[in-house]
């Protein structure tokens, strides 16, 4: 039984890591109604920039601030060059633009900093906490704590601040938001900057786990079923979705995998999400969209 709980707890903690990436998607989607295909590339770009700066002898905190500043500049440029010309265009146009942005960021990151994988030590202890027969990773516990703080802060940001409310209005209707005086360009720049910050945090934690390398872009694939399950517009949904996906994929891999040849944890979350779509298309916490005609 302790093995079951070890798999379950490990899965829940892995799920928190997925949630971290999913959060970035949620932020952009809330602001523009667009799935930001470039989120994975932003994770890579942020982590690679940070680690490259520290390897050049720049102090940890200074590198963190500098990377954050770079992500903010990137957000402003994205708003100016990519998003502003596309105001009031169909969501699919914006989505296509983020695909282009994704390739640009991937190329830019590797062009600027090289394609070599880097080790990243954040100073978070990566030991094993032994509880009975169970091994729990202390790194994953710390990561879960960081994610919890981040989610709390974002929840306050969205629900208790003017910017948060303006952001929700923008997501609903660009033109209507502009008509009531909401500065769309500022909102988008702010949201992309916050998404850049989330990408940085996710990149650092994932980078410390597996190294900072191109594969960081692929962690975005782990976030998609989380979003389908939790809803594209809900911060708590991203967390709950992450926990469900993390736990279920690990349990499925360990207990169902051996009967079907193993290696199922890549597609199992998508299957689960698809089944969930049939029951609740807007996700667990997503806003129900009703069009009156």
């Amino acid at each position, binding site marked *: 039984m302790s093995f079951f709980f070890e798999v379950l707890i490990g899965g829940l903690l892995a799920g928190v890591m997925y949630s971290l990436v999913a959060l970035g998607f949620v932020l952009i989607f809330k602001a523009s109604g667009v799935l930001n295909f470039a989120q994975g590339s932003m994770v890579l770009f942020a982590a690679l920039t940070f680690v490259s700066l520290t390897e050049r002898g720049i102090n940890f905190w200074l590198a963190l601030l500098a990377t954050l500043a770079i992500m903010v500049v990137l957000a402003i440029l994205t708003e100016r060059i990519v998003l502003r010309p596309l105001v009031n265009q169909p969501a699919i146009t914006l989505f296509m633009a983020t695909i282009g942005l994704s390739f640009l960021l991937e190329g830019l990151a590797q062009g600027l900093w090289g394609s070599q994988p880097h080790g990243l030590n954040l100073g978070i202890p990566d030991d094993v906490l032994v509880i009975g027969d169970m091994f729990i990773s202390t790194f994953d516990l710390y990561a879960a704590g960081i994610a919890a703080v981040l989610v709390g802060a974002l929840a306050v940001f969205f629900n208790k601040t003017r910017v948060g409310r303006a952001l929700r209005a923008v997501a609903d209707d660009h033109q209507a938001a502009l008509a009531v005086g909401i500065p769309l360009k500022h909102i988008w720049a702010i949201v992309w900057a916050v998404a850049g910050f989330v990408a940085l945090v996710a990149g650092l934690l994932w980078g410390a786990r597996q190294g900072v390398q191109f594969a960081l872009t692929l962690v975005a694939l782990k976030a998609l079923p989380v979003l389908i399950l939790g809803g594209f517009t809900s911060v708590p949904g991203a967390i709950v979705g992450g926990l469900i996906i993390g736990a279920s994929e690990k349990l499925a891999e*360990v207990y169902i995998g051996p009967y079907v040849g193993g*290696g199922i944890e890549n597609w199992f979350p998508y299957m689960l999400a698809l089944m969930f779509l049939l029951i609740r298309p807007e996700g667990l916490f997503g806003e129900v969209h009703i069009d009156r005609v």
Partner: protein
Amino acid sequence: MTLKKVLVSCLGAAVLGGIVAGGGAVVAQSNEQFIPMLSYRVGPYAAGGTGIFGGFIDYINLLNERDGGINGVKITYEECETEYKPDRALECYERLKNSGPTGASMFNFVATPPVYATMDRTLEDKIPVVAIGYGPAYTADGRVFPYIFPLVTTYWSQNTAKIKFIALQEQCLAQYPDLEGKPDRAAQCFEHAKKGELQGDGLDKLKGKKIVNLYHDSGYGKETKPILDAQAEKYGFQVVYIPVPHPGNEQQSQWLQIRREKPDWVILRGWGVMNPTAITQAARIKFPADRIVGVWWSGAEEDVVPAGDAAIGFIAAALNPAGDQFPAIKQIEELLYSKGKGNMQDPSRVGSVYYNRGIIHGVLNTEAIRKAQEKFGNKPLTGEQVRWGLENLEITEARLKELGLEGVMSPIKISCADHEGGAPVRFHQWNGKQWVLVSDWIATDQSLVRPLVEKEAANYAKEKNLPIRDCSKES
């Protein structure tokens, strides 16, 4: 002379000069041997791609710079970015196969999927595919696959050496049980082996042992299953297969299964991010790194650096050792890098594992051309002619020394029937800063591999209705 005549004369001279100059260019171009470079410098496997193709290109440039090419024939190349994607690799193949005065000499995909995809095409195009240390093992049967050359050592051969290495460790531990758990166990065992103190090959010690084969869930990852099963049956050990879905950046459940299985050894058949993730996860379940033996696509600096201290003690097969102490590499530094002509963006990577593998690519490709020139003359050769060179390639210890690369690889000899060479394998261990050799060259077990190669090749020939060449009639 009127002005008109002067102008006409000038124009005529210019045209004539142009023809001569152009003719010169044509002559120059016609004395070139073209090698397409299907590199991957961006994407998830760019670290491997930049290293291998960097070494490959540097070696070619060294020959051009130092010797003026091969016997006066300059080697040219064109890069085509594949991002390690099979569809792009095929696109590049089609685009470049007719380039150069005589078409492509050969293709080096440095990726297994395009080898599968071009196996039949090569027969029509008559251009060899060189797969150094990768690709389907059964293509080593040159009677069925005249244009495929999985040179040096296939995955099956490598796996037999890996099991022999594990057996040696077991033998060593049986004689010196105090070494168990010591960080320098493998190095000390190597010392005992060098002194001839090990009383056997240890293969009898494998009986009853459990080995987990943790593999990338792809054709590449599954490649060694037949040979591992055959070895398990022969030596009496148990194999547990655990797949890791692509890309392998999440392996918690796999390592929890490993913890439950309590294996004696783990074979890591990884690629890219799967490797550091596996090593990190092993540390989290307290599985000793020196009981994990990786394939050579797990044994580069890029595979261990991201895992940090967790990788200390990790062992992997070495197609080639790391190091820039070899004379040829010193010449590359001197003739290319000191003049800013080196291919590596980061010159500190010269001498790394992947870079040196690129050098081996350069050696095998160019030596095959050189061999083919012996038969067909010192001129640009077609793919079909280079194929002959590959099939008759022999690189001796003396030749390696002559090339300034003694110790980078072991000698090999290719033949009509054997397109592999069955070269031995070494193993190296990561000490936190560099790879250190912990074995001598270990011979592969061709008594196990070859029958399996012939069986699978015959099946393929039957399925595709391919002829089986009679090698006694080949010249």
